[in-house]
């Protein structure tokens, strides 16, 4: 939070720090909630289809995979790392699970285990190269982005995978997979976000993630096993990608070869809009969930307003600039304190 030694701080700053620790929601998250509320309000006046159960459920389902992967990505980015291979990881898991369901007709549990094993394996490869190979995470994951995409395309062979059975339809996008008006997929995402949020906030293991992001050397000197922590974080991204793949596969049907293409940018955008700093040391999964929600809302809004869907990325870009700009201003003010 601050690099100034405690004894040189004035009483008022100390109070400010204490206050910040006590609040459940950080500044960036409040800003986001405000922005989302404004957009929703504007949409409810501009369209008469936004506030329908079907539309809200579609938005929520569409952001579930991003939020689920974001749970891992946020932690990785807090350590000043990154994983740009998640899109290719998702392609490998989706293609293999699609084939497992279609050709081998495995059940829910065995397929889920298989997905987690495959996802974990991909995460472990990244983790091994980053921690043991001591290579910059961006280089490693740029490399594995290509390698994993090759693996996925090999699994596909020369064709798409049609007619995948809907074994996982209970977390899919259909209107039946809804509990209390909210898609089961988003309940799953909320559960994962909550667990990670509590872990990163209140457990020493979670605080170590921030310590590594602020100063990895200092963290090592303080007795944190930095290598092991990083390994587990990149591994967790692989597991979470597997979960996201099951959600996206959901009701089954056709799996296309371009699955997961560009997903890494969406997840990173959600993290950044949610207040995670790519320079490490700052960020919460709650913010990432809100960031994903904003991106999902904007995507839906553009369709509802009848605008060209290609405009979505323009708005996502503008929101990233605004969100990070506000964050930079707040940091500058905090530095002046």
């Amino acid at each position, binding site marked *: 939070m601050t690099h100034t030694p405690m004894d040189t701080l004035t009483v008022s700053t100390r109070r400010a720090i204490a206050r910040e620790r006590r609040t459940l929601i950080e500044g960036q998250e409040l800003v986001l909630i405000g922005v989302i509320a404004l957009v929703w309000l504007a949409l409810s006046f501009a369209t008469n289809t936004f506030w329908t159960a079907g539309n809200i459920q579609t938005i929520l389902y569409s952001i579930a995979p991003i939020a689920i992967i974001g749970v891992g990505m946020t932690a990785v980015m807090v350590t000043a790392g*990154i994983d740009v291979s998640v899109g290719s990881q998702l392609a490998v898991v989706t293609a293999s699970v699609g084939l497992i369901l279609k050709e081998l007709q495995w059940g829910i549990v065995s397929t889920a285990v298989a997905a987690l094993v495959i996802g974990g394996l991909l995460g472990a490869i990244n983790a091994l*190269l980053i921690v043991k*190979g*001591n*290579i*910059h995470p*961006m*280089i*490693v994951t*740029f*490399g*594995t*982005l*290509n*390698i994993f*995409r*090759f693996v996925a*395309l*090999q699994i596909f062979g*020369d064709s798409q995978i049609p007619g995948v059975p809907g074994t996982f339809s209970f977390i899919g996008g259909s209107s039946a997979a809804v509990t209390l008006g909210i898609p089961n997929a988003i309940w799953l995402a909320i559960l994962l976000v909550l667990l990670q949020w509590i872990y990163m906030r209140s457990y020493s293991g979670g605080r170590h993630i921030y310590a590594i992001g602020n100063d990895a050397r200092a963290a090592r000197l303080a007795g944190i096993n930095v290598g092991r922590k990083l390994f587990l974080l990149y591994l967790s991204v692989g597991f979470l990608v597997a979960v996201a793949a099951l959600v996206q596969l959901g009701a089954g049907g056709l799996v296309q070869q371009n699955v997961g*293409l560009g997903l890494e*940018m969406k997840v*990173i*955008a959600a993290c*950044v809009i949610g207040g995670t*700093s*790519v*320079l490490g040391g700052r960020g919460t999964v709650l913010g990432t969930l809100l960031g994903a929600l904003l991106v999902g809302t904007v995507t839906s809004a553009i369709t509802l307003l009848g605008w*060209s869907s*290609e*405009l*979505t*990325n*323009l708005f*996502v*870009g*503008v929101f*990233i*600039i605004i969100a*990070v*700009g506000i964050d*930079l201003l707040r940091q500058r003010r905090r530095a002046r304190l």
Partner: protein
Amino acid sequence: MTSNVNTSVQPTKDTVPEKKERASSVVKVLTTDRMWLLVVLIVLLITATAIADGLRLLVAPFTVRYLSVSLIALVPLALLALAETFVILSGRSGIDLSVGGLVSIAGMFFGSMVVDHGLSIVLAAFITVVFATLLGALNGFLVGFLGFPPLIATLATGYAFSSIALVMHDGAPYSDPKLTGMNELTAGIGPGALAIPWHVVTVLLPVGLLAWMALSKMRWGRSLYAVGTSDSAARYSAINQKLVRASAYAVAGLLAGITALVNVAQFASARPDAGTAGNGLALPAITIAVLGGVAIAGGVGKIGGALMAALFVTWMNAIILIAFPGSFGSRVQLLALGIVLIGAVLLNQAAARHQAT
């Protein structure tokens, strides 16, 4: 590919003692200067392919003509790798994810200038490059002056550029006899099998030379290395570090603008997804820059390395297509790029450790 190097370097260790000194200095150059490592890799690649061709293992014949024709893919790849080199050199986790979107939007802008506004090719090309430089300067302003993390600023502007490129002509490409005529610029020149694409000589070589001069011989280039190495040290040496860093992004924009023109010439039309189709152009460009020895932390890297890496990847991709049949070949290209990238960095680190001990 890297295992090839190791086996070829290995025998030098077992040579007679008096030759040992010289041999170890060769090893040292190969492991520390990425450009020479890549030159050796290119020679090995071509030799291996020629042998495979002799043994009739290839799908199509391997000829000098094939190598020179395949250089057409080198130009955009090398230009964008140079763009990334400048940006990554500038430090503070410098990176430019927007070059793909920039190529798309600049190409469409150029198409609109020529087709909708009836400008001459030369004037439109000039305005397009200025336009692209300004968009790059926007990245530079966000990163250099406002303090945005480069990854984020260029992710956002890249989103915006690619999105605008898609809507500005309703997703349709610009095609016009004048644009089609530009395709002449990419025709082969030179005698017979050695005929290399025209724009390798007219565009890539001059740009590469200018980039090398700007970086190695000019004050600006030396300041860029200083800023990339240490922000505060550069500031204390009276370097305007904000301006220098911002200018690196503007130069990247300029190079992306030239790439857009090359793209229009190669495809004989301006496509709205020219720089963003598939995985886009930014990822390969960054990969090639890093393969060329540019350190992601900034302050380290050379133009020669980036150009050699682009040449290596171009020929590797071309050879893979005649080594493996059909769509399998294009898939192997992905695999090879990933392995080469990680392999090169691992090799560098092994060399650094070897020197430390």
